């Protein structure tokens, strides 16, 4: 009898409506609280900030010799700083490499003289079961051409063998040397990083190298003959 009464109470329309509305109400409150914290408070914060500082153009101030001295001091500083900043961009030839889009830009006398596709590091992390690892990425920053070579040969490092599942030979083993795979020219950036040619021309414009910068034959030739030892290479 009592159970029946309870069941009847459970099924009363007000109870049913309440049961349906309760989760909706809780959800509405939760969303309102989130909106309050995430959007309303930051919005009200901006309202507390006063308007812009008022500026003046007072003639009395402008006639003040101390004011004029300050303005001249600032103008002179700006001139000095501008010319100092301008000196950072060399009039010599330099190369810019964009590793995100795999593009290069060659400059001479502060003018762009050639641009095109290149290939840079693949961002592959090679790991061995023994715990050795290599990241194949092109370093970023400012570099200097440290050396120039024609008809370079490639001395394969350990990872070149490990990557293909081959046993690693001794340091000067003949299997380490490959000829003709780096194109006709190579420019050294130090730490084993080179700008060189490639036999995989279809991959130009893609991140596929082990850290070196690959170019096609014509571009490489132009870069080789435009840049000198000591020229700057900017990689980003």
């Amino acid at each position: 009898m009592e159970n029946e009464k309870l069941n009847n109470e459970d099924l009363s329309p007000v109870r049913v409506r309440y049961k349906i509305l309760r989760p909706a109400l809780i959800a509405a409150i939760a969303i309102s609280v989130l909106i309050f914290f995430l959007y309303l408070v930051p919005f009200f914060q901006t309202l507390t900030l006063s308007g812009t500082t008022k500026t003046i153009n007072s003639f009395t101030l402008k006639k003040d010799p101390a004011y004029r001295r300050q303005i001249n001091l600032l103008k002179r500083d700006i001139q000095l700083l501008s010319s100092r900043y301008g000196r950072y961009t060399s009039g010599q030839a330099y190369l810019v490499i964009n590793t995100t889009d795999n593009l290069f830009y060659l400059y001479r006398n502060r003018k762009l003289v050639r641009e095109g596709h290149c290939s840079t590091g693949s961002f592959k992390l090679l790991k061995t079961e023994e715990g050795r690892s290599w990241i194949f990425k092109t370093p970023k920053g400012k570099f200097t051409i440290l050396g120039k070579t024609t008809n370079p040969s490639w001395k394969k490092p350990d990872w070149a063998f490990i990557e293909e599942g081959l046993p690693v030979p001794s340091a000067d083993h003949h299997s380490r040397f490959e000829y003709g795979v780096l194109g006709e020219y190579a420019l050294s950036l130090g730490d084993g990083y080179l700008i060189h040619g490639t036999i995989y021309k279809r991959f130009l414009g893609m991140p596929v190298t082990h850290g070196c910068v690959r170019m096609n034959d014509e571009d490489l030739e132009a870069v080789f003959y435009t840049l000198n030892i000591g020229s700057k290479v900017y990689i980003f």
Partner: protein
Amino acid sequence: MTIPDVPISDRKRYIPVFAGAFLLYYMIMMLISPVRTINSLDREYGFRQNEKNIINDSIVTDSTYLSLYRERAFLQARIDMAASDSLCLSLNLPDSSANLDIVGVTVNSTKISGMKVSKILKDRQSYAITSMLSKPLTIENAFSSIPREPLMIKMAPRDTSEYKPDIIPDTADYEPVNFILELKEGIVIYFYQDERLNPFDGLRCFFFDLGYRFVRTWRDLKNVVILKVPEYNPYIKIRLPREDAKILYRALPEKGQVALLR
């Protein structure tokens, strides 16, 4: 209609009161924070009369002086960055340009498609803010929708039979580019991809932004709970082409530097 007699314990009855009081307290603390930020900036970078500034402080309300002062501050910051020998970002808001510099050489220049700047930074006449910007700003944290280095892990084959040549990278792989740089000086710079190349780009941008709002709010809540006024962060929201956004994010080092001209 009768209201159902729902039993409410005494404790539950106080929950809304406490919640309301907390919200009010949180709101007050949050509203105090921008004012405190301005005051602390004025204290640290405000005008001081010295040998160099021989004139009184009325000069800091002069538009000619402030305009030159801003220009000098930007140049000074860029020169300081050039000494750092790493990739840096120069944001020139009046010119709508974002440049990537290495040792003073601009290697990439981007046109900003749209921007929104918080009131504090918009106040171009503020001497204190300009003084702060005469030194490079340092990136403290970065949040991004793309990885800085898209690493692919490959286990070395045990022998030649296990060796598989590398797959050509999928250049069609698409990920919208949005990122946020939190600077040590308290400024937050949002970079959003301008193009809507995919129907869900807008939604993904919204969720990226929402995620960051959660991070910020959580940080503020923690401060408020320990009775500390949260830090107010002036912001710059920038829209720029996807490719350029990607270049900027991937090129900048983790603790990179930023020069800003308002």
